[in-house]
């Protein structure tokens, strides 16, 4: 495995569902990561990677010092099959941390679920990891991500959780008009578009 890329220490892998019901929670996590001064990365970057999708995801995971894993949506889907992608990517990140080359030994992982201790019923082997509950609240996700990044990175430049949540609400209020100005529906924004829209809005409005 190659050595650390120059932005390894700034990259945060976000492993979560990508369905419409979860979108507002993903938006909140992305916003919190960016206002803290880090780069959000996720499997959506591998959407067009075809058969190499898994390898692409593995590459992304190994390029991120930080990993946020939401295991809150693993139930049986409409087709009566459980959703394994989130536990799979959590396992890949744990493996990368444990068996990867030397620099990956300093990886930091945050596991989120919708309620405390629920994980013990379906993935109890991860006991001992940093596991928090978000109760499907974007505010709680923002505060968990903020506090965890602040603790693990020791960065002194990260604003407080209440401030970040207020700025996130402001961004959410302008997003529909911003989409109109960009001549796209919210659903048409790719992960890259959304992430860059957050960055540029912060650049222009955090003064």
């Amino acid at each position, binding site marked *: 495995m190659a050595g650390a890329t120059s932005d390894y220490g700034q990259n945060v892998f976000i492993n979560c569902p990508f369905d419409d019901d979860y979108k507002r929670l993903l938006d909140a996590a992305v916003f919190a990561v*960016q*206002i803290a001064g880090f780069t*959000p*990365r996720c499997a959506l970057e591998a959407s067009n990677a075809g058969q190499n999708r898994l390898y692409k995801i593995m590459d992304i995971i190994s390029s991120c010092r930080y990993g946020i894993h939401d295991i809150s949506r693993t139930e049986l889907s409409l087709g009566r099959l459980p959703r394994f992608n989130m536990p799979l990517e959590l396992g890949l990140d744990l493996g990368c941390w444990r068996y990867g080359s030397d620099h990956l030994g300093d990886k930091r992982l945050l596991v989120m679920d919708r309620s405390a201790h629920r994980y013990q019923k379906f993935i109890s082997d991860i006991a001992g990891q940093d596991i928090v509950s978000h109760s499907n609240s974007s505010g709680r996700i923002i505060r968990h991500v903020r506090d965890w990044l602040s603790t693990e990175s020791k960065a002194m*430049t990260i604003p407080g959780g209440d401030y970040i949540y207020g700025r996130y609400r402001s961004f959410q209020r302008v997003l529909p008009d*911003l989409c109109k*100005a960009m001549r796209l529906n919210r659903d048409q924004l790719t992960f890259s578009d959304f992430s860059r829209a957050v*960055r540029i809005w912060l650049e222009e409005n*955090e003064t």
Partner: protein
Amino acid sequence: MAKNQHVVPHGEGWAIQGEGSKQVTSVFHTKREAIDKAQEIASQSGVELLVHGPNGQIFRSVDIPGRLTDTEIRDAVRTLARKSARLSRTRHG
């Protein structure tokens, strides 16, 4: 070799600073002016523009293509800000 261009808080205003430099190269009253100039320098030199927040943190995003360019997104953000300012002036005055 050209250096990445940083837009950083500077006293009451904002400044442009080459990466690794201790001194700023230009000072501006507004962040927008500093971003515009730094963007121009960065584009000409083929280096990165990095804009800091008020606490000094650098705002970052994933570096992969989307449907829109950064310029199109920034134009939309500024169009919205102008509309909002116009609306605010109309309401207050």
